[in-house]
């Protein structure tokens, strides 16, 4: 039973990261479309922000893995 609950946890983490990274990516796209000359800067900033969001969800995945035993 513990295995399935850990899987639910990993799935919830994926939802959170999906929402976060989706928003970052969408906003970066909008920014780049408005100001193509700033595309490089926006891309770097986007990657850093995405890494922060991803880290939180990866914490959750690691906890889910540990919970899985």
């Amino acid at each position: 039973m513990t295995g399935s609950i850990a899987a639910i946890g990993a799935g919830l983490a994926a939802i959170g990261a999906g929402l976060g990274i989706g928003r970052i990516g969408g906003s970066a796209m909008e920014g780049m479309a408005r100001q193509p000359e700033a595309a490089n800067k926006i891309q770097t900033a986007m990657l850093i922000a995405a890494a922060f969001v991803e880290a939180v969800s990866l914490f959750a995945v690691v906890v889910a893995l540990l919970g899985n035993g």
Partner: protein
Amino acid sequence: MTPITNRFSAKNTVKAAIFFILSLITITQVMANEPEVATTNVTSDSVATASHEESKHEEKFNTSEVIMEHIADAHDWHLWGHTSFHLPVILYTDKGLEIFSSGKFDHGHAVHAGKYYNYKNVHEHIKIVDAAGNIDEAASSHVIDFSITKNVASLLVAFTFLLIIFISVANGYKKRGIAAPKGLGAWLEPIILFVRDDIARPNLGDQYHRFMPYLLTVFFFIWMNNVLGLVPFFPGGANVTGNIAVTLVLAVFTFILTNINGTKTYWSHVFTPHVPGWLYPLMIPVEIIGLFTKPFALMIRLFANITAGHILVLSLVCLIFIFKSMMVASVSVPFVIFISVIELLVAFIQAFIFTILSALYIGMALEKPHHENEHH
């Protein structure tokens, strides 16, 4: 327009080559998994005499066990089929040093009689066993394992590759001076300039040259190990950057560099933050914890990203064995190729993220005192 079309055809050739190499890699991944399934079947056959119910249980393909075995560290480096490199085992026991080949363990089946104790390899952890073959946990806890494991060996391989590449490039610059680089140098120069102009300069300002050696080393070390980890056969195949001990040491380097370079302003943000005095008992502990969470996040991010990538590829390959059908391979192998291509990108992005965040944290520590009117 002609140069563009030329570039397009060159791009297509490169694409075709990459696709070919990746399909080759995935095929070898599938083949590398096959012998293991065969061995589980053999063992289950030998157990089958016990009882029918138990043998049925044994035959079930244990996905998580196979995956964990592939991403974990090991005492031998698998080559093909039943052939593997037996790496040396170096143990520091309370009675002295023991050095022997891991081949003596016969993949965990045999007990090796060393100079001082008898040893057994239990799931890649070396344990002391007594004469009856029982594991002596109390004695085992005093053994310090300094073995050259698969990860250590892979680290040395990556280290050798990096030395060969960078020494030859450096020699090229010595010979030709500041001319247009050739060969490997022409490939590396844009990447080094990328680290300098996109990572170091924007975050570290005018002091960037002091940290370039560290940032370049970290960047190429992580990238090389990530890419080697994606190669499923011999010189690669270890999960070095997906090992938390490796990422811990890298994060500790960044932590030390950040804090020994901390300016007065940086430390004043920690110990005298700009908040009302009654908040100090709350804010100072939070700021101190904040010093540690940054490298901690660096450690977990790299470890979890690389491990997750390996697990993903391995689970897709395992689908074939779960469904016990070759038809599944026609779906899962293209998926493995797709994920492998994404992982090549992730290998670069993770090296980039680790380096840029290290630069960012060091840059925060180098902060100069602001003027009073700049405060917010």
